[in-house]
């Protein structure tokens, strides 16, 4: 099958959706499908062979944080050309309602279109004001997939219509059994995520860290993810600074190795998470997980059986949870084992099998994806000229 995938966010910026698209593309290619990904990108030289440059992103506030998105006449032209020349059997758009390439692709294409909704939106202003626009995008989509029950509820509540639930997946083989990135005398407590994004909750962990140090003076706090070291350490007491290792932004492989080094992985997020893929990655790498009790996290951790949950934003409870895990090696062992069993359910090979079922049901008896020229005066004229061009070249030798 020839599959066209649209990624809404910049390929070279870290993010869950981008990682999802990459894993999806690579898993589908491993299964023998032909895949092309259209994505915004800052630096086109970072793109893998299967990805196509969709233009440079611009910073736009969206869904409570700043997203870098791609819009405009030039982007539209690129989307149209990609669809025209791709000859896809099915078009898979991620985050169709984010003001980015996804929506443009839905407008520009006709034929079997599948869309995946990742974010859970709390009655966002974008949705209310853009209701009519959102409908013009949604009505072209043959099948909507939600990665979590939260994301599904967003669709049902705000837009009408239903979605198929296909939980997110991870490539377990990328995480299991990797070499730890760092080793220390004492236990390593880890954080991974954008440090300048308040909803990732680093502040809660930093507030709790003195309590952890008081009980485990040898402990190290390992910080991974984009952010400014001076900003992060500004509010931290001097005596704690020596115990903090700041790695900044890391690539995928180092991320796996960093997780493998952790004796406890802490996810202190305060909201905005619809799935919690990072917890799965930590579990696949063998790190015991301590996470805030967001619905999404609680679901991934099987209600607390595969990790320890603490009340959202409660630094004291976080410190107590981390301390209790560090105190008991047999509990760490149990969590690691429960975690590696739990992640099996979320391996990408299973997700890919579900996706293929969806593709098969929307493509049955349909032709490939074509450029949609209806309602487009300019487009129609252009296609007429192109049509003639094709005829002329077709009549040649």
């Amino acid at each position, binding site marked *: 099958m020839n599959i066209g995938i649209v990624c809404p966010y910049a390929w070279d910026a870290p993010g869950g959706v981008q990682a999802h698209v990459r894993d999806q593309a690579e898993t589908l290619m491993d299964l023998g499908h032909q895949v092309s990904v259209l994505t915004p990108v800052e630096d086109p030289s970072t793109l893998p062979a299967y990805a196509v440059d969709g233009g440079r992103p611009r910073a736009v506030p969206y869904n409570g944080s700043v997203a870098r998105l791609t819009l405009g006449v030039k982007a539209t032209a690129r989307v149209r050309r990609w669809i025209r020349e791709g000859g896809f059997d099915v078009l898979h758009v991620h985050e169709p309602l984010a003001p980015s390439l996804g929506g443009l692709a839905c407008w520009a294409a006709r034929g079997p279109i599948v869309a995946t909704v990742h974010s859970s939106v709390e009655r966002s202003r974008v949705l209310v004001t853009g209701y009519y626009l959102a*409908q*013009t995008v*949604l*009505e*072209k989509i*043959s*099948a*909507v997939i939600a990665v979590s029950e939260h994301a599904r509820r967003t669709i049902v509540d705000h837009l*009408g*219509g*239903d979605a*198929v639930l296909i939980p997110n997946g991870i490539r377990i083989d990328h995480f299991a059994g990797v070499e730890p990135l760092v080793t220390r005398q004492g236990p390593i407590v880890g954080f991974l995520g954008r440090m300048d994004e308040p909803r990732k909750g680093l502040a809660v962990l930093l507030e709790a860290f003195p309590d952890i140090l008081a009980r485990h003076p040898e402990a190290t706090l390992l910080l991974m993810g984009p952010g400014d070291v001076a900003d992060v350490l500004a509010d931290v007491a001097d005596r704690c600074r020596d115990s903090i290792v700041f790695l900044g932004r890391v690539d995928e492989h180092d991320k796996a190795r960093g997780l493998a080094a952790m004796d406890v992985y802490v996810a202190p997020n305060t909201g905005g998470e619809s799935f919690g893929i990072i917890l799965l990655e930590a579990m696949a790498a063998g790190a015991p997980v301590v996470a805030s009790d967001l619905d999404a996290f609680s679901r991934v951790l099987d209600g607390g059986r595969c990790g320890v949950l603490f009340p959202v934003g409660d630094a004291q409870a976080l410190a107590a949870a981390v301390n209790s895990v560090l105190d008991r090696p047999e509990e760490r062992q149990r969590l690691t084992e429960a975690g590696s069993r739990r992640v099996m*359910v979320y391996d990408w090979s*299973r997700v890919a099998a579900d996706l293929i*079922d*969806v593709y*098969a*049901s*929307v*493509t*049955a*008896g*349909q032709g490939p994806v074509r450029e949609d020229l*209806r*309602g487009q005066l300019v487009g129609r004229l252009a296609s007429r000229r192109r049509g003639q061009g094709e005829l002329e070249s077709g009549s040649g030798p």
Partner: protein
Amino acid sequence: MPDWWWWVPVIVAICLVGLYLSMTAGRLDRLHRRIETSRYALDLQLLRRSALALDLASAGIFDPATTVVLADAAHVARVASDDDLVMRGLAESDLTRVFVAAIPDEHDADELRAMASDPSMLEDLRGICVRVQLSRRFHNDAVRACRQVRRQRLVRWLSLAGRTPWPHTMEMDDTPPPGLIAR
């Protein structure tokens, strides 16, 4: 001020209403087309399922009683008229229930795989049953979206939908056999 000035807002208003109507007509057209394709896809999956049911019945892997019931249900589903959605839904639901009863758990599925000369038939059956379920969901979703637009007052008064018949959802039991989807 010239005495024709009040024409300007009237003309603008007429243009806006016209634009809105033409966009709505365009939406309806797209929605009807989507229903057509999703209905076709669902039909195709249902036909594949009944064809596979007949193949499975003739493969002789089920016990005689199940084989007879399966062949009969598959035949009824195949001859059910396309026009009568209710009868078609009932016939397909019967076929679903035969499959559910025939492969109630993983243990039975494993036994059947061991008996079958071509074990991929059961994998095909799993795929088709899941796809029937998905296709029906996508179709009913398209119908719901279309009905939402067709219920609007302006659409009804100006009969923007033309002579296209009121869309109907497909109601049937589409539970896949539990033995095949257990993981």
